[in-house]
């Protein structure tokens, strides 16, 4: 016997769970236009990437050209198999297909001084469906909780 699962509560919990599943799994169009090929120049220095936010479209073929302004730096993207290193006079290129939508942090992968662990940028592969789904799930959870706990 669970006293806190009385009245309309099982119904609220079940609907919120169903809506959450729907928000996570409902198929959505992954992109609008045709994939492009693009080259992005990224400068690395202690302790920043410039630009630190990169936007590409899902399916694009992306070439990153990494140039370092001071010492040896790396660039590795969470969730993508990308990891390159550059130092002044030795720039690096990597080409990959942005086949996963969402936001991915990229980080310096070579220890470069005190703030190295926080040398972070972010790559957004549009449309950012994971973010949209996460917002939807958050709102569903919040509304569900409001309905669930409104009156005890």
């Amino acid at each position: 016997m669970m006293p806190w699962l009385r009245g309309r509560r099982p119904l609220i919990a079940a609907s919120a769970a169903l809506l959450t599943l729907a928000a996570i799994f409902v198929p959505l169009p992954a992109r609008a236009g045709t994939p492009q090929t693009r080259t992005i120049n990224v400068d690395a220095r202690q302790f920043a990437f410039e630009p630190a936010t990169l936007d590409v479209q899902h399916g694009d073929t992306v070439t990153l050209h990494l140039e370092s302004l001071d010492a040896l730096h790396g660039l590795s993207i969470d969730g993508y198999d990308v990891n390159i290193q550059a130092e002044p006079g030795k720039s690096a290129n990597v080409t990959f297909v942005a086949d996963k939508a969402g936001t991915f942090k990229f980080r310096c992968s070579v220890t470069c001084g005190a703030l190295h662990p926080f040398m972070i940028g972010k790559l957004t592969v549009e449309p950012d469906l994971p973010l949209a789904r996460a917002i939807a799930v958050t709102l569903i959870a919040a509304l569900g909780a409001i309905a669930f706990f409104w009156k005890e």
Partner: protein
Amino acid sequence: MRREIFALGVVVLSFVVFPASLFAYQAWRTNALDARVIELTANVPANGGWQPDTIRVHLGERVRLRISSTDVVHGFAVPALGIQVDEILPGHVEEVEFVASRAGRFPFACTRWCSVDHWRMRGVIEVIDPQNPNPASPTFAPPLYQQLNVNIDAAHPARNVPSEHPSAVRGAVLAEQITVDADTRTQSPSDVFAKLRADAALKSYGDLQLWDAIAFEWKRAAGDDAIARGRQLYARDCAACHGESGKGDGPAGRNLPGRTVIDASARRGPADFTNAAQMLGASDVLLQGKILRGGMGTGMPEWRSLYTDQDMWDVISFIRGFVFEYGMSDKK
């Protein structure tokens, strides 16, 4: 009471014996070796560079250097002793051992670009012979540019400039027909061109054909191996300022004054090796003079203490390729 003594014993162990054993282990690692261990710490020059930057050892000593970095990736080379450590990762220790088999002063340097001041990151190993602790300074022949009285600070515009970059590839085809009889060390390409152009036997060849032949001659005289070595040295030591494509646009050179310290109207920043008007007017000797002496305030470091003559000739041969299209693959 016995319980208390046991508990106290364990605490004493962790307060005294445990820390002591850590340091003892490190001391044992050092003293168990049959070499003299020297700790060498790499910092970017703004934070002190090499510490220590002078390493004194005795002739005949076996020396083990424990090199570590406190900040970024550094490299370590003592060219005269043939020691090269390509990568010193922060917090790791790289060890190299050598026997101080001859007395003298052996400069060492960082070989990875570690900051804008990277080139200042140098030091010296002094191998002292106890029998002769104060040897007379060795005397060297003056460098070639001094022997030949070349003014390496003067402007050196080319007397003739080709309409496009000369190609050693095209020149190779002409090599049977055009004999370039020139000393590629002491003569500038532009002087060689003037000599060929004045040669009546070559009248039927166009200007560019002569330039192509000259380009090929420089490449042939250097040899592909030397150019390949030069490419590596250039990438390691020069490209950060002069740029990977030789245009003088490398990230470490952006704030350097360049020749403006000599001539206010000159272009700021490192020399542009793709500029035919400048490069073709310079002989290899003149370029070597600039490399070995350094730029006296321009931002160009001196390389005499780290490079052999052959290193410099190799780098120059490679640099020529920014104007003389060698048609060599960029791959190592």
